[in-house]
């Protein structure tokens, strides 16, 4: 596997401008002869499909939800970062680049991260033009708030529904292109296979989830925008349908999978209340602007929070990280919470949570101000838990949230399969080993609106002579047969355990051994356990019904089958990285005071995994990270 | 026939419902103002009311308005019918097995069609009693030589069951107005929060005055039993 990041020459600040000025273009009359498939219709997918269609390409857009407006970008609450420096607090593209790179523990490419920061301001302009109702100050200008891991206010927001509003903006742009006939929309379609012809991605095999029909779709290039695979942990902040199947199946056709184990465990989620639980709801990180996190100083303290006096409370984030306090980055906040919970200081019926307390903020600003800032979040908290957070502290707990890892892509967002692009959360690119809050909406949008429209043209300019791709090609035949075979296998086992049952067991296993804390022993054990579980899955799975009908159990089973393979790569990824960085914390590699110990001398690279065949150990490749502009430092938030 | 009557779409039809409805609301004010003369002392009431009735039936302007009025009633009824059929189609054939939707909106707002139908039947009775005899029937003359509509009215309201029919019908009208007045402004596009609220209150005040006024007259006549002069 050849890993050429294709980073343009020149100083950091000029790389993207140079690329844009020199990349190849496709003329308008040729664009309409070129077909593009975009899989996924969240922020990345919708923004890409809309932009590409607007440019004149013929686009087919796929999503498994019943409408693109429901893709899980919709659930992002807190905001989107942009280095507009509206607050005159010293922000700039360079500072944002540095914050993001440092937040990711210096495990991302300089050039990619700088481009993200550089394009961030354009995104706000674009969203406002689409009618996204961002919060405004009384003078009518855009408001900002601060988020974890930075010391400036650069987060734009629309109450607690920023993701929804940005997605609806992209969805409206997409809808406009659908109406104009430039985009064909295939909702309730799931991609089950990638078609590669002569080494290039040329189409997909999709299943119509409303009828069960297997369909072939051909194009000159395929864009994956399928989001993260955090649902692999079963209990996560992701939607029930979120999955890693599209990228995993692309991986099995030759796309390198990077940094699989770098998954973010978000510190402020609602704790699990029972075995029936299907998801863990995220409470926006913005709450940490005003909420203070604490646990009792006494282990297993049975008293309710109101009866624990101030001096018997341990504000552990403020204690350990005085400079950033409650706004320490997510990986650090999650680890600190887990450390307290594991040490017996957890609160709540299951002793699996910590308090997020607004009493001080309410005293300082008044209840009305707090209600205006977080009213919808407090209401959501009450709906789910039945408790009033104005009166007693919230109980929160870490939960799987974001995948920094994903398909390896070069500077042009192309995977190791020519013609296969990966954008948004499903790629590995800009966040390194840990993502800063409010950067994920940004990356999804920037990839879709501003980067892919240039880089895809650079690729497609070489495809003008290819002609129409035929879905009758033998490669389509083979790919379709593979898909049908797998569906058939899943249906014929007729054992005694449901897909959800396997998913829950896998999730618990990963939380335990490949979650916030990881050890060599644990990971080795996990690999064995996953293999055993996978073998059991193919022996004892039970899927009712058939393939030629609506069958959500069959959909789940296919996704769990892929998770059972991906989980193993995650563990190999974590096992071979003998250092701690960002969200990846190996207990063997920590400083005396329990902080992550990075080992730049040996691990300043991104692990890229190649598929070696069924039941084979994956092959490790390395993309070295070169820092030309800045020097990696010890990441300290103290 | 319905196809021809169905304007481009339901918003246009709703506009028509609103405009005709508001015109009928306006008419009710005039009608009530005239009828309040029935509350005057008997002798004066008789002369004044009959004079007023004659004025109405001979003025060319009033004549034109009355044709608009009839047209409004017919249009309001027909479009209500068209919209109801369309609503049936939109809802589809499969209803809910258990339906508690009534809990989230006032009953009268959901039953405007039924209220309207009752009002329509009332109108037929009402016109058969007063309008038809006045226009085409034999009505005695009063002292001033005018048709004595006053006598017809007073005699009618001496029957308790007739008064009861009127009171009930006016309550039906009241609930129709309570929703209709507000709904008309909503349909025409009064979206402003503050003025919308004002209009909401204006609608309630209007409904109260019209309903109470029209109920008062038959009850007043029934209990005071004024004797019309021969």
């Amino acid at each position, binding site marked *: 596997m050849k890993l050429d990041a294709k980073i343009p020459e020149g100083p950091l600040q000029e790389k993207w401008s140079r690329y844009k000025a020199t990349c190849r273009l496709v003329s308008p009359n040729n664009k309409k002869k070129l077909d593009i498939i975009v899989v996924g219709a969240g922020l990345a997918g919708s923004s890409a499909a809309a*932009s590409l269609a607007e440019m004149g390409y013929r686009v087919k857009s796929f999503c498994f*939800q*019943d409408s*693109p*407006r*429901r893709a899980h970008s919709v*659930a992002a609450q807190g905001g989107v970062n942009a280095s*507009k420096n509206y607050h005159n607090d010293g922000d700039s593209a360079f500072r944002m680049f540095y914050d993001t790179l440092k937040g990711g523990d210096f495990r991302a490419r300089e050039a990619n991260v700088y481009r993200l920061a550089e394009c961030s301001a*354009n995104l706000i*302009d674009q969203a406002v033009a*689409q*009618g996204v*109702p961002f919060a*405004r100050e*009384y003078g*009518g*200008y855009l408001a900002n708030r601060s988020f974890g891991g930075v010391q400036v206010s650069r987060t734009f927001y629309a*109450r607690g529904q920023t993701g*929804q*509003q940005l997605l609806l903006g992209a969805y*409206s742009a997409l*809808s*406009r292109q659908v*109406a104009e006939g430039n985009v064909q929309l295939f909702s309730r379609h799931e991609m089950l296979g990638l078609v590669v012809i002569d080494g290039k991605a040329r189409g997909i095999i999709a299943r119509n989830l409303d009828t069960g029909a297997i369909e072939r779709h051909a194009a000159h290039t395929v864009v994956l925008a399928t989001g993260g695979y955090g649902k692999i942990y079963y209990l996560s902040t992701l939607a029930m349908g979120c999955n890693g199947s599209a990228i995993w199946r692309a991986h099995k056709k030759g796309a390198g999978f990077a940094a699989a184990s770098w998954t973010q465990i978000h510190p402020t989620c609602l704790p699990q209340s029972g075995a029936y*639980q*299907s*998801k863990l*709801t995220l409470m926006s990180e913005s709450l940490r602007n005003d909420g203070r996190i604490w646990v009792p100083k006494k282990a297993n303290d049975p008293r309710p929070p109101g009866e624990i006096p101030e001096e018997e409370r341990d504000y552990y984030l403020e204690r350990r990280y005085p400079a950033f306090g409650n706004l320490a980055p997510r990986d650090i906040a999650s680890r600190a919470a887990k450390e307290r919970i594991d040490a017996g200081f957890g609160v709540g019926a299951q002793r699996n949570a910590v308090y997020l307390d607004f009493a001080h903020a309410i005293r300082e600003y008044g209840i009305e101000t707090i209600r205006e800032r977080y009213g919808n979040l407090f*209401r*959501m908290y009450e*709906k789910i838990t039945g408790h009033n957070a104005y009166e007693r502290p919230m109980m929160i707990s870490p939960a799987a949230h974001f995948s920094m890892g994903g398909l390896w892509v070069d500077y042009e967002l192309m995977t190791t399969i020519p013609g296969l692009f990966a954008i948004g959360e499903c790629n590995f690119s800009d966040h390194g080993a840990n993502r800063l809050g409010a950067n994920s909406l940004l990356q999804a949008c920037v990839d879709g609106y501003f980067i892919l*429209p240039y880089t895809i043209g650079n690729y497609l300019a070489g495809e003008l002579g290819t002609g129409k791709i035929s879905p009758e090609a033998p490669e389509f035949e083979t790919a379709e047969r593979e898909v049908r075979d797998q569906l058939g296998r899943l249906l014929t086992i007729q054992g005694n355990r*449901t897909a*959800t049952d396997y998913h829950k067991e896998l999730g618990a296993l990963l939380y335990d051994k490949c979650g916030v804390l990881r050890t060599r022993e644990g990971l080795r054990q996990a690999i064995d356990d996953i293999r055993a579980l996978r073998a059991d899955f193919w022996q004892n799975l039970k899927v009712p019904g058939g393939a030629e009908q*609506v069958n*959500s*159990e069959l959909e789940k089973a296919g996704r769990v089958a892929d998770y059972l393979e991906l989980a193993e790569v995650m563990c190999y990824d974590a096992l071979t990285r003998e250092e701690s960085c960002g969200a990846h914390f190996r207990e063997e590699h920590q400083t005396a005071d329990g902080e992550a110990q990075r080992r730049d001398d040996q691990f300043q690279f991104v692990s890229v995994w190649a598929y070696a065949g069924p039941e084979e150990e994956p092959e490790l490749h390395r993309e070295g990270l070169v820092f030309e502009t800045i020097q990696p430092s010890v990441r300290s938030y103290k | 026939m319905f196809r021809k009557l169905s304007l*481009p779409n*339901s*918003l*246009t*039809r709703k*506009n028509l419902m609103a405009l005709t409805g508001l015109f009928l609301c306006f008419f009710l004010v005039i009608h009530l103002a005239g009828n309040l003369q029935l509350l005057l002392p008997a002798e004066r009431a008789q002369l004044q009311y009959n004079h007023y009735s004659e004025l109405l039936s001979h003025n060319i302007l009033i004549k034109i308005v009355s044709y608009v009025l009839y047209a409004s009633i017919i249009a309001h009824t027909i479009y209500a019918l068209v919209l109801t059929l*369309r*609503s049936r189609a*939109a*809802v*589809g054939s*499969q209803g809910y097995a258990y339906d*508690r*939707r009534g*809990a989230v*909106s006032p009953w009268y707002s959901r039953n*405007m069609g039924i209220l309207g139908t009752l009002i329509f039947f009332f109108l037929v009775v009402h016109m058969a009693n007063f309008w038809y005899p006045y226009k085409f029937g034999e009505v005695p003359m009063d002292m001033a030589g005018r048709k004595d509509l006053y006598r017809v009215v007073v005699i009618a309201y001496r029957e308790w069951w007739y008064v009861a029919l009127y009171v009930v019908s006016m309550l039906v009208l009241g609930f129709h107005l309570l929703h209709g007045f507000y*709904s008309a402004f*909503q349909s*025409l*596009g*009064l*979206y402003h929060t503050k003025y919308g609220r004002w209009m909401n209150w204006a609608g309630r005040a209007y409904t109260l005055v019209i309903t109470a006024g029209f109920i008062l007259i038959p009850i007043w006549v029934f209990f005071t039993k004024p004797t019309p002069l021969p």
Partner: protein
Amino acid sequence: MKIQLKIWRQENARAQGRMVDYELTDINPEMSFLEMLDVLNEQLIQKGDMPVEFDHDCREGICGQCGLFINGRAHGPQEATTTCQLHMRHFKDGDTIYVEPFRSRAFPVIKDLRIDRSAFDRIIQAGGYISTRTGDAPEANAIPIGHDVAEAAFDAAACIGCGACVATCKNASAALFTGAKVSHLAMLPQGQPEAAERARKMVAQMEAEGFGHCTNTGACEVECPQEISIRHIARMNFEYNRAGALKK
């Protein structure tokens, strides 16, 4: 808790459906409504039956994909709450719960409780956007928008497209859904140039999809999980009438 369920089962779009009885024991009051259905489905699969198909995805009240008619109410008895955020603690031990799909001719049943709401997509496609191109946007702060205007626009933009408004409407009208989008964009300076034309096109599409008309009962704003006001329907009517008045 013990719960009796009466659930709409329908094999496919063409089949005849019916209400089927199920009984569940050991329901934890902390479960969400959908988690209760998950428990039922796991049991059905174990028994060799087909599970109940229902729409859901994010399970945090924002994607708008879940939508069940529970005990005679859209999204169940709690106001301003989606089905996924409804919890079993709002029911009593021994309760009988009716579960039906959102009904309207424009929302055909696909299977069991799963419905087709693509009509909503087509209404947006008819004009629920501002015609701007990627990359040509002016500086975001170039057009100041008052705090209250932005907040009011957000109130309308918060629509999650679940269809509860249609399900609860006695006329199966999509006026609140359409009105919310028309109003959101008409309130913002960026959206004003197209406001009248947008209203005209979206209303025409709403009509073509077979939704009913609005009789202003206000049921939709009560059942709307995002509490969108019917004032936005009035705004749509206003913009629509303005389009008619301005037509050359």
